[in-house]
């Protein structure tokens, strides 16, 4: 039963990777414009994230140290400042997108503007962090995240052609508009292989005091958690392909796509869409705000841990407080959350190589991993992930320019 509860860390991590404003937004556009043709990008992202989280969970379970911890010690500050700066920038941009996305869900539900909702929504997220413990946040998001299974129910209900779905899992030349296709493929991978998943998952494993006996549960949690997120994200693409594509709706805004679930699920569809968007965004925002505190505290050697009281770790608590305050600014000045998300994902893709590349050295360091260093399979996987990260980083700027 205890091992089963560990699944919560996998689910909460995957919510931040697959069910937040960026992933739902790109999924809707991918399904609406290219039906099932971009499912492969999501599957590729899910496999990459599952390998990366398994590795960082293993590092945490064996050494009781996080990736950021190990990176600072192994590479020193003159090198580590670059991945750290890149990750702080990415985390802040994505956090701003998520709080904007959560406020957007409330705007869709109530008709009251994002600018009215953004401050109370962010304050609510801050209260959860201030008063909550790691396990209460983790289990709360994991349970609430199950609401997003409504996309899976809707997708199965609409009886897609499973043969076409399977064909979508293999990359093919697009039927039309290759620039937009490439733009969405990079967006989907950028939204799912997010660097904060890696540092959050390893910090979560240290918070939960994983030990070497947890190595097998870690593998299951990484595979099951990322499997959960990617299946729901694939269902978003399927529903968009079945509902939006035949009606010629291109889902360039959430307002256009909000009625998506009403077709298969009737009057509950709209409520479930808004609820799923809000839960995904709040879950991701909690994850990102905590991740910012984790990476800063671990880099500078401060005391950290969401289970501690704010007065026991003032700098940790103030870091997420300041991050959340800054995250409200783009929405307050009227920047559309979906546009901010697309920009954040392009920055994420550019930053990804310098954040994941050091993993190939860290995961082979016996001082941390003892006899559990990477084997041939894991090393091949991490090298492939780094190669993919470099390729999409090179493609990101031209693709953003041509395909947006």
């Amino acid at each position: 039963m205890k091992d089963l509860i560990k699944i919560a860390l996998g689910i909460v991590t995957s919510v931040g990777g697959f069910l937040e404003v960026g992933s739902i937004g790109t999924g809707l556009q991918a399904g609406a414009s290219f039906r099932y043709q971009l499912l492969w990008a999501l599957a590729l992202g899910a496999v990459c994230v599952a390998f990366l989280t398994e590795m960082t969970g293993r590092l945490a379970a064996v050494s009781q140290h996080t990736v950021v911890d190990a990176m600072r010690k192994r590479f020193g500050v003159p090198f580590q400042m670059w991945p750290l700066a890149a990750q702080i920038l990415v985390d802040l941009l994505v956090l701003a997108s998520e709080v904007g996305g959560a406020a957007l869900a409330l705007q869709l539900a109530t008709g009251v503007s994002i600018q009215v909702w953004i401050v109370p929504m962010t304050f609510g997220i801050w209260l959860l962090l201030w008063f909550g413990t790691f396990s209460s946040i983790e289990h709360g998001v994991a349970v609430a995240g199950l609401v997003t299974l409504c996309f899976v129910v809707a997708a199965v209900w609409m009886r897609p052609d499973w043969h076409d779905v399977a064909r979508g899992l293999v990359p093919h030349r697009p039927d039309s508009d290759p620039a937009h296709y490439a733009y969405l493929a990079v967006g989907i991978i950028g939204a799912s292989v997010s660097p904060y998943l890696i540092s959050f998952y390893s910090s979560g494993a240290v918070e939960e005091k994983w030990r070497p006996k947890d190595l097998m549960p870690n593998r299951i949690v990484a595979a099951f958690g990322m499997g959960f997120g990617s299946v729901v994200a694939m269902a978003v693409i399927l529903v968009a392909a079945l509902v939006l594509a035949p009606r010629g709706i291109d889902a360039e805004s959430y307002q256009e796509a909000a009625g998506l679930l009403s077709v298969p699920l009737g009057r509950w569809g709209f409520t479930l869409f808004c609820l799923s968007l809000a839960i995904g965004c709040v879950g991701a925002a909690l994850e990102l705000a905590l991740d910012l505190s984790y990476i800063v505290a671990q880099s500078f050697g401060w005391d950290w841990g969401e289970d501690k009281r704010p007065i026991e770790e003032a700098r940790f608590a103030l870091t997420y407080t300041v991050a959340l305050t800054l995250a409200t600014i783009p929405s307050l000045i009227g920047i559309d959350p979906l546009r901010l998300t697309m920009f954040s994902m392009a920055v994420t893709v550019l930053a990804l190589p310098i954040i994941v590349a050091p993993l190939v050295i860290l995961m082979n360091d016996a001082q941390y991993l003892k006899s559990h260093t990477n084997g041939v399979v894991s090393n091949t996987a991490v090298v492939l992930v780094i190669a993919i990260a470099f390729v999409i980083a090179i493609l990101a700027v031209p693709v953003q320019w041509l395909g947006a």
Partner: protein
Amino acid sequence: MDLVRDLLDVQLMDRKQCRIGRVDGVLLEIRENRPPRVAAMEVGPITLVRRVSPTLARWLRALAARWMPVSIRSVRLPLTLFRDVGVDIELDVDAHADRRLLRVEKWLTRRVVGRLPAAGNKPGEAQK
């Protein structure tokens, strides 16, 4: 001990397992006709920034002297304080009792975080 591999950037803990920073710099004593000797470890943001850019460190020092309400001067800790050396280093100090350590943390606790509501408790704590 390899100073760069085993000492520089290592996490420091006090005897109560409280994290007190990282080894941001190592101070060497140059002796005539004898090998250099490690005089102390330095912990503090100015030492850290100096490793990236000495100019930036000078700016930080000047800014901090003018605007920071609490000193961010680096702390020098002798190697005689070592209690246990592993992936982290445990020192024979009590960070909360030692006035030189965690100055910014203590100031923020007293002046900022401590004044916010419910900073001293977590409702979920009882279940831990």
